[in-house]
């Protein structure tokens, strides 16, 4: 496989991830722009379950962590571009907007959508994550063993 499709693939993975992690309120601000096109729902937003599996320490044997709800949606614009979305939770409107954004991002206006939609979302997600990491780091406990007086 050549590197161009791989890079395209990675870029799309990145923006689909950003759209999935976005807060609903952040996307609703762009709702009018996103819906300002002719489109049809190939797969109307639907809620399902998926099994989350994990590996202890990232390398151990896989185990079933539990099930989570997932919402997915596929739209097609009038020119044939299809947008997909998969996101955690049960928010159908969010899934539809995210799928529309994915479709728009594959078109000729990609740079504009990236700078107006994806980059601000990615920045606010990075800020949220940093804040949470800082909060978590403050509660970190260093365990150590005192010398026991046995000898």
């Amino acid at each position: 496989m050549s590197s161009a499709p791989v890079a395209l693939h990675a870029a799309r993975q990145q923006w689909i991830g950003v759209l999935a992690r976005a807060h609903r309120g952040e996307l609703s601000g762009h709702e009018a722009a996103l819906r300002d096109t002719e489109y049809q729902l190939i797969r109307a937003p639907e809620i399902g379950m998926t099994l989350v599996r994990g590996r202890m320490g990232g390398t151990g044997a896989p185990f079933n962590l539990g099930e989570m709800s997932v919402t997915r949606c596929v739209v097609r614009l009038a020119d044939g571009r299809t947008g997909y979305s998969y996101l955690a939770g049960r928010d159908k409107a969010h899934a539809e907007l995210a799928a529309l954004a994915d479709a728009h991002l594959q078109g000729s206006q990609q740079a504009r959508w990236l700078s107006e939609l994806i980059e601000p979302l990615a920045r606010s997600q990075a800020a949220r994550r940093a804040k949470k990491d800082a909060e978590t780091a403050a509660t970190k406990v260093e365990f150590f063993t005192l010398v026991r007086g046995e000898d």
Partner: protein
Amino acid sequence: MSTTLLQPAFADPVLDAQRSFRAALKALAGPGLVQPLEQAPPLQGLAPASYALCLALLDGDTPLWLAPAFDTPTIRANLAFHCGCAIVSHREQARFALLDDSELGDLQGFDLGNDRYPDQSCTLLIQLPQLDGGRPLAWRGPGIQHQNRVALPLSEGFWRERKARNDFPRGLDAFFLAGHSVIGLPRSTRINCLEPTPLAEEFA
């Protein structure tokens, strides 16, 4: 990329799939009676009834064999997307087969199930131009009180093939689909000529 070929399927995926499944059950429970099956939109080359049954019955656990007439990029893309079924090139691997009337003279290769698991046979989804207009035959057997008169436009070859592969409990179950209607033909149904013909042939 095949995504430009995708079309919407059921308007209400859950209820429409349940209605279609119910129609399929009724069709097999009352062989020869026409059941309505109008939940799905048509798809290029596939009648609404055929598409509805595909959407209701196929999923990731049901490999499908497609007759050449249905082996188009549009049908492949939409069945793969909406049903997630594998499309196999060998009849032996298929749990469902989508056939048109040109394929019915040869049913070789389809899985008939085995004596322990006769339910594992391949189910035939047969799309016809219409469900009447052929030679009337008398259908008898489980689910039919006396006899049902059914005039499917089928060649003798199909009935011969069906009889040759009917080794109860092993055998082939079929759905005949046209437009918005379905007729079921389980392996347990016996087919007789309605009026005595010169040959007075009996099928199955």
